[in-house]
């Protein structure tokens, strides 16, 4: 089984479109494919293939701190320990937990000498599965407003790899979020290949450099897919790819047809 990540750094370069078209390509070749949408903050692959999410197959949980005021002695150690600045305490008052900043790391309840902080399990995301013959689409969706979405991506990947084993999948395609931060890193880790989708603009080139740099640091082989290849200036992209020893695997010229199918959610009909 091969694990291929579809990523790109910059947003809106066509990651999801390429991921779906690649899945389609593998299916046509008779491969068993699982497409995992790991852009858990904004998953869209299901929309591109005209599916609805339906009922979640699995829920993802994390533990968050809750103060037990009866036990709390207002010592302030939790506020001092929290590196996310998610615990605020006025001198002499009970600490206040700011959920928007909390990463659910658990340092506060470990450090509390009174055992006054309970760790309560809360839902942080959902995993959905859509199936069409031999093709599976797994979608991860983080709860809105969740600060730390990397662990949700991790759980989605665990789920997908289990499913891939059970279904004896040939290929697992992992569609990542834009950017290079934690949810993207978690999605990329342990992949056999990363396909960086970019566009022939200076922004595309700059962000490509960042994502290829990240792949190099993670020890993942990368290739470049140049989308809307005929619209801008390819030179910059080639020079960045060259610098990282990544080949340009495919050039996709601008296509009104793809744009239209994209906006109608009918990419599978292409």
């Amino acid at each position, binding site marked *: 089984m091969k694990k291929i990540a579809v990523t790109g*750094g*910059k*947003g*809106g*370069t066509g990651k*999801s479109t390429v991921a779906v078209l690649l899945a389609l390509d593998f299916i046509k070749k008779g491969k068993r494919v699982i497409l995992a949408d790991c852009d858990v*903050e*904004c998953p*869209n692959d299901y929309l*591109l293939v005209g599916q609805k999410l339906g009922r979640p197959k699995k829920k993802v949980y*994390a*533990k968050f701190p809750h103060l037990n005021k009866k036990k709390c002695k207002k010592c302030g150690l939790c506020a001092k*320990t929290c*590196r*996310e600045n998610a615990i605020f305490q006025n001198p002499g008052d009970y600490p206040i937990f700011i959920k*928007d*900043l909390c*990463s659910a*790391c*658990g*340092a506060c309840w*470990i*450090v509390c000498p009174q055992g006054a902080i309970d760790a309560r399990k809360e839902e942080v995301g959902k995993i959905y599965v859509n199936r069409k013959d031999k093709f599976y689409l797994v979608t991860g969706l*983080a709860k*809105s*407003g*969740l*600060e730390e*979405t*990397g*662990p949700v991506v*991790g759980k989605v990947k665990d789920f997908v790899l289990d499913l891939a084993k059970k279904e004896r999948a040939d290929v697992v395609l992992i569609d990542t*979020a834009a*950017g*290079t*931060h*934690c*949810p*993207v*890193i*978690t999605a990329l*880790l342990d992949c056999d290949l990363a396909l960086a989708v970019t*566009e*022939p*603009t*200076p*922004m595309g080139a700059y*962000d490509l450099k*960042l*994502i290829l*740099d*990240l792949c190099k*640091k*993670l020890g993942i082989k990368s290739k470049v897919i140049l989308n809307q290849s005929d*619209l*801008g*200036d390819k030179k910059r992209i080639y020079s960045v790819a060259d610098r990282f020893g990544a080949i340009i695997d495919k050039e996709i010229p601008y296509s009104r047809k793809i744009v*239209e199918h*994209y*906006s109608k959610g009918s990419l599978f009909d292409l």
Partner: protein
Amino acid sequence: MKIVISSGKGGVGKSMLSSALSMLFGNEGIVAVDCDVDAPNLRVWLNEIGKPDKIIPVTTSARPVIDHKKCTKCGKCVNTCQFSALSLSKKVKLNPFLCEGCGACEVICPAGAIKLKPVQNGRIEVRKTKYSFPLISGQLFPGETGSGKVVTEVKKEAEKFKHNLMIIDSSPGTGCPVIASIQGVDFAILVTEPTPSGFTDLKRTLKVINHFKIPFGLVLNKWDINKPLSKKIEKWAGKRFLGRISYDKEVFKSIAKLKPIMESDLKAKEEIEKIKERVEKIIIGK
């Protein structure tokens, strides 16, 4: 006054709009802030590709350093780490790419074998643009964590510049860098495009915006690629609708040549000027 430009979905035109609005408000005492620290492109949209005037290192991350002489291999740190960054075979090993630098391992270790060490995870670049306003950009180093904290530092740096208006360009998504970008702003300009993905992501972003009780307006980019859906989105936005921008391949070509939209004679330029007027009316009450 602080405005954030956000969208959920990537590539819908946040930085294009941020750069154009910065140039239009340029004479009114603004500071432009690129808080898309994962992939900061605002300077490219402004054709500011030279070296910055000032680089400020950001050290808001940390990594545990394990003293293997003190470590008893009890495994408590491994079980405690919520980010699966620690493992134990012959000795405790850290996967730095999963580590959030939270310090839970340090506080649980009964042997005192773990100490957190600060890590430089990004930098801030300060530029005086050729349009006379300052541009503050953040850059998270690839492979580092703590993007939200880098964003917070970038905003702190921007505060140091005297300004009437701060224009903040956020990253796509809804997670920590976006939350850090929108905290404390007075108004959000949400950008979307008439595609099912654009609309769905817009609504997800709106949940976060509403959570922080931030008033918002909506800009519809590439409105003419799906007119029926555009109509629906405009109706949905009601009086919060700020304006539309047409889809134009020339925008793509213009920026590929590093020519800012506001220096072109494209239709988008006029459309954005109208959007600026609406924004002014709403937020500044002119």
